[in-house]
């Protein structure tokens, strides 16, 4: 699809936000708290911060909630009655302020929840999400989007990508049908495309490795001391998976209240020792090294082999949040 370029004034962003809220959309945007920047539900434009590199958490919870009801049930001795959670109405959600890496992460995430078994719960939510991303003007030592086929101004995954120009106004690249719909609904706010180039306004993210080369190297690296070496400090806390915008491993658990209850899908992590434990006590991934290997191979070998897209967008969240300072970039570049 052809990308349409517009200019949107800095002062018009708030109008756009208010129109979205006025049209009944739920808006999630970066909000600063004492120690973190989180995607939170916001009601007023003033609640949004634009002073952030990336948020601490990923935006995935909007389409893949941390705990999600799959169905509810009512049980008596004779009968069981099941109520499908996928028929419940899902709100239209605008993700405001995602970074290009966040938006790109929805591509592999959607792949995982489709294939031979389309996941209607995920697809219902995803179908109602608008991604209004903002290009990165800054980066830090944890960022490596350019090593995994991304960039600070990458349009993939976003519906509209805003890039702040030297004037303080924004270039608006309208990428998808959804983006075009929003522009049509807010026509007066979008002006003729600016003259100024996008590129000089983007962060310079260093390219540390080439995803295709890493993928090729990993083919023969299953047995290698690097996995134990790089994961010795790992506590198995699972924080890396929880903040990752692509990680989607989950557990299924039941919650029971008397004769009623729900079956839930909950976030899980390949870093947890119980993740693969057999009932017999046998564990195919017995050590933290084997679990770290799974994390790296899944993202940089298995996923791109299967669907052409890596399971890592280089946002660096896992490394920033790791209490043991394990750095995914350091592991990958040491290969």
């Amino acid at each position, binding site marked *: 699809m052809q990308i349409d370029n517009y200019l949107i004034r800095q002062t018009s962003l708030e109008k756009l936000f208010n129109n979205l809220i006025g049209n009944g959309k739920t808006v999630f945007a970066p909000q600063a708290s004492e120690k973190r920047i989180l995607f939170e539900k916001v009601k007023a434009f003033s609640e949004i911060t634009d002073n952030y590199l990336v948020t601490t958490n990923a935006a995935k919870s909007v389409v893949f909630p941390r705990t999600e009801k799959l169905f509810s049930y009512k049980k008596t001795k004779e009968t*069981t009655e099941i109520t499908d959670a996928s028929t419940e109405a899902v709100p239209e959600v605008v993700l405001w302020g995602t970074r290009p890496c966040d938006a790109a992460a929805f591509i592999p995430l959607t792949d995982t929840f489709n294939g031979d*078994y389309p996941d*209607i719960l995920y697809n219902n939510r995803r179908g109602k999400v608008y991604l209004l991303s903002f290009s990165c003007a800054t980066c830090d030592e944890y960022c490596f989007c350019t090593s995994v086929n991304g960039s600070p101004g990458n349009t993939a995954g976003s519906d509209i990508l805003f890039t702040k120009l030297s004037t303080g106004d924004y270039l608006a690249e309208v990428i998808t049908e959804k983006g075009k719909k929003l522009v049509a609904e807010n026509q007066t706010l979008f002006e003729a495309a600016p003259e100024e180039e996008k590129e000089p306004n983007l962060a310079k993210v260093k390219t540390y490795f080439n995803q295709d080369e890493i993928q090729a190297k990993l083919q023969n690296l*299953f047995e290698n001391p690097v996995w134990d070496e790089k994961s010795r400090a790992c506590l198995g806390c699972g924080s890396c998976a929880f903040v990752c915008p692509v990680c989607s491993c989950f557990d*299924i658990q*039941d919650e029971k209240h008397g004769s009623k209850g729900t*079956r839930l899908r909950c976030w*899980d992590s390949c870093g947890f020792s119980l993740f693969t434990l057999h009932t017999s006590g*046998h564990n195919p991934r017995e050590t933290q090294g084997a679990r770290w290997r799974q994390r790296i191979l899944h993202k940089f070998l298995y996923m791109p082999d299967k669907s052409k897209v890596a399971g890592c967008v280089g946002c660096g969240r896992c490394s920033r949040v790791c209490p043991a300072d394990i750095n995914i970039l350091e592991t990958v570049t040491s290969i």
Partner: protein
Amino acid sequence: MNNPNIYIPYLMRIEKITQEAPGVKTFRLKFENKQEAEEFEFKAGQFGEYSIVGVGESTFCIASSPTRKGYIECTFRQVGRVTSALASAEEGDVIGFRGPYGNTFPIDEWKGKNLVFIAGGIALPPMRCVIWNALDLRENFEDITIVYGARTVADLVYKHELEEWGNRPDIKLVTTVDPGGETPDWKGEIGFVPSVLEKVAPSAENTIAIVCGPPIMIKFTFPVLEKLGFADHNIYTTLENRMKCGFGKCGRCNVGEKYVCIDGPVFSGEELKLLPAEY
């Protein structure tokens, strides 16, 4: 599954419960919904997620043969929370079932061949499906040999069927128990499955070997089969890594690049050799 929500189970009524061994039960399950019963199809080797709502789901292969219509059976050992809840269910109770999932044994390709089934302990149930499938189409195959072992005589499952198979002239059945697991009147072999197999195995000529057991048994049985002259592509096994979803999303059952739930659970020796020993 007809429901667009792939997590919703079929409701199944427990028609019959058989106590197979200490802590091991077989459920015969019938669909509550007639239309679902008519539309349901599966093939030997496939598995499902069995559940008690409010407690959770557990993964077992379908233990009955697709040639036996109108019901499915599962056999499980009571170990964890879900299997304990299942074990306390009674005939007439309703449980959940999602499936069938996974690939199948290529039984159509085995026409005209000898078959040797090798199973250990609670791994006979996944194999029982394909054994009965083959027995119900007996004329399609040459010699059929079954080598089955358990820790003790009491732990052997499907005792009535073992007796029936033992009495059939068209099956060679060899049962074995681990040393120390025998009873005074035990007439079978004493020893671990791989070593017993080495003694009693049929010729590898025109023979397919189907192996199912705990990972440790599989790892010891494959070299024996190799020594006996079985080519990798004539050996099949079914893996049972821990699962939650059953359809390639929850992310835990993979062996290297292959998901046991969608690429397996049935793997040939040839396929298994290309994978890391992550099972």
